[in-house]
């Protein structure tokens, strides 16, 4: 009897699948089929050497292997510049099929003609990703996570999270605030935020640097080392700082003794940057496999796990983030309403000068 039921269920499934296949568009079906047929195939994946890279191996690579039978060989590099250097050094014979990296690296590689444009029709999970987060780097990168920056505040000092970036300029926190270091993209976004607060914009940045200069003698440090920042919060030497991502201290921020909280609910919004997966032009692996892998990285379950582990914002609007991590990650509502991304192309022209100006302002 049981066997009959199973058989009947299987027959029903087969009929259902046939109907679905005839109604869904072809790429979606292809993607499903592809995911089932990668046994014996190998994908070479380059990612970061830090916790984010480890989380990608755990949540994306391992689950992809389990799901499809494909073998994923991972290599890890120390930062985006390391990845760019590795790919450039390989020239026309790259050893990787997929790379995850920050926007600046993706744009640099795209400009150097080292990337292959992905076929978005083979990424069905993109349907749940807002159009502005789907691609970037001239169409060569597929957005896979949002690096989100909020204000980090001392939970022992603040009864409620600050609701505006103006809190950084509040005299009562003088000597007890930190800002991002000049070489980080967070510093660039902070300059833009300051400019907007002072009536400027990314294109009219001078008011921003003037406003930042007011903080010169009020900051304790520029947070180059996240562990030091966490330690200073633990010892109550810091009240407030940012903009900064909790992704820098995913373990410490969850421990109450570190007195750290993060807020994205500023009335001015919060800064976000897309992180990308890219395909090297002369990738050694199978292109179907590569697209299936990128599609898997956009799966709502995978996205939820990644967001929870590395405290980045998911790009998939259906991602479910476990409750213990959800207060450190912007919600899909916050991302839709408040996330702001700077203009990468315009920034590339001025970033060097901005790094210089920021460094000069805060030199001790």
């Amino acid at each position, binding site marked *: 009897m049981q066997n009959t039921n199973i058989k009947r269920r299987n027959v029903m499934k087969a009929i259902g699948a046939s109907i679905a296949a005839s109604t869904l568009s072809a790429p979606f079906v292809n993607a499903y089929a592809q995911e089932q047929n990668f046994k014996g195939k190998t994908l070479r994946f380059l990612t970061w050497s830090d916790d984010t890279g480890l989380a990608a191996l755990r949540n994306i690579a391992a689950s992809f292997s389990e799901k499809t039978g494909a073998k994923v060989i991972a290599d890890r590099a120390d930062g*985006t*510049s390391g990845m760019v250097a590795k790919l450039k050094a390989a020239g026309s014979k790259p050893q990787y099929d997929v790379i995850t990296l920050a926007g600046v690296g993706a744009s640099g590689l795209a400009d150097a003609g080292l990337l292959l444009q992905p076929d978005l029709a083979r990424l069905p999970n993109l349907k749940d990703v807002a159009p502005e987060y789907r691609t970037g780097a001239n169409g060569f990168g597929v957005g896979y996570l949002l690096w989100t920056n909020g204000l980090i505040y001392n939970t022992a000092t603040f009864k409620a999270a600050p609701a505006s970036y103006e809190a950084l300029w509040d005299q009562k926190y003088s000597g007890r605030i930190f800002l991002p270091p000049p070489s980080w993209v967070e510093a660039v976004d902070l300059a833009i935020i300051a400019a907007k607060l002072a009536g400027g914009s990314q294109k009219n940045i001078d008011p921003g640097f003037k406003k930042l200069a007011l903080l010169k003698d009020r900051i304790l*440090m520029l947070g*180059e080392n996240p562990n030091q920042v966490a*330690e200073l919060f633990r010892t109550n030497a810091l009240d407030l700082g940012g903009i900064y991502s909790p992704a820098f201290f995913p373990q410490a921020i969850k421990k109450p003794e570190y007195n750290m909280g993060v807020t994205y609910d500023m009335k001015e919004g919060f800064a976000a940057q897309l992180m990308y997966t890219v395909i090297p032009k002369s990738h050694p692996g199978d292109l179907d496999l590569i697209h299936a892998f990128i599609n898997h990285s956009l799966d709502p379950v995978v996205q939820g796990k990644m967001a929870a582990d590395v405290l980045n914002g998911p790009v998939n609007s259906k991602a479910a983030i476990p409750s213990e991590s959800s207060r450190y990650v912007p919600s899909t509502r916050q991302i839709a309403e408040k996330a702001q991304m700077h203009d990468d192309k315009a920034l590339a022209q001025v970033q*060097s000068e901005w790094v210089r100006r920021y*460094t000069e302002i*805060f*030199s*001790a």
Partner: protein
Amino acid sequence: MLEENSHRRPWLLLSPALLFLAVLAAAALAVVRMSVDVPGHGWHGISLSGYTDLAIPYYLKSLWLTLRLALQSTVLAVLLAIPVALAMARAKSKLARRLLLTGVLLPLLVNLLLQSYGWLIILGPGGVLNHALLSLGIVQRPVQWLYRENGVLLGLIQTAFPLAALPMASALRAISGSYEEAAATMGASRWQILRHVLLPLAMPGMLSGALLVFAYNASAFAVPLLLGGRRVSMLAVLVRDQITPLLNWQAASAISIVLMLATLAVMALSQKLVHRSQHLLGKTS
């Protein structure tokens, strides 16, 4: 035949070392080549823009700051190393000598990141020292020891201290005790013996130590980054800025070459000055 073999043997023995040095030299030459790249065109073409772009106050100030902090840390490290080196050279007990050596070597043995946390625990705003000063009512607010030039200077001295102390101890140990005895017999005080006998004789060791400290600290990266709170922009930190996030390898290489040349120039000059003063001293005595 035998004679020919005996000529070849030293070169054969030297070849592993020469090969290693050749690899280092090739890497250095690659940096020199990158410094004259045409931006965006890799190694196709030559441009000096990487160097000319450095002639602005931002980089010149950083170069001055780097050389100044390296020089200050060298002088202070050498001065602090004198009593330690003397104790190491004159200690009779083996145990005392070993303990002193271990103590001096500790900054090289302990991870720099860990050392920076040590300083944070001691000198940080919520650190032991500030806690004590606040409890005693000596200060009303925590004193900022770290994330300023002073914090970086402290870190530079501490991390490079073994480089100053070890060559000096070795030089002092090589000085025969009879010189001290002779000077003492002639009525020289302990200070006079140190000033007029030991230190001049140990000068080569002191000079090598000083040069090592200077070169090591002129290229310091981790100390200004960790103890300067990124507010003390020594040149090596600016090299990193050019690589990440600006991906400007040409500028990074040019800054590295300038830093290397400036360091070599200061070292050569100081060596020359010391030799000249020793020569003059020799003439007058």
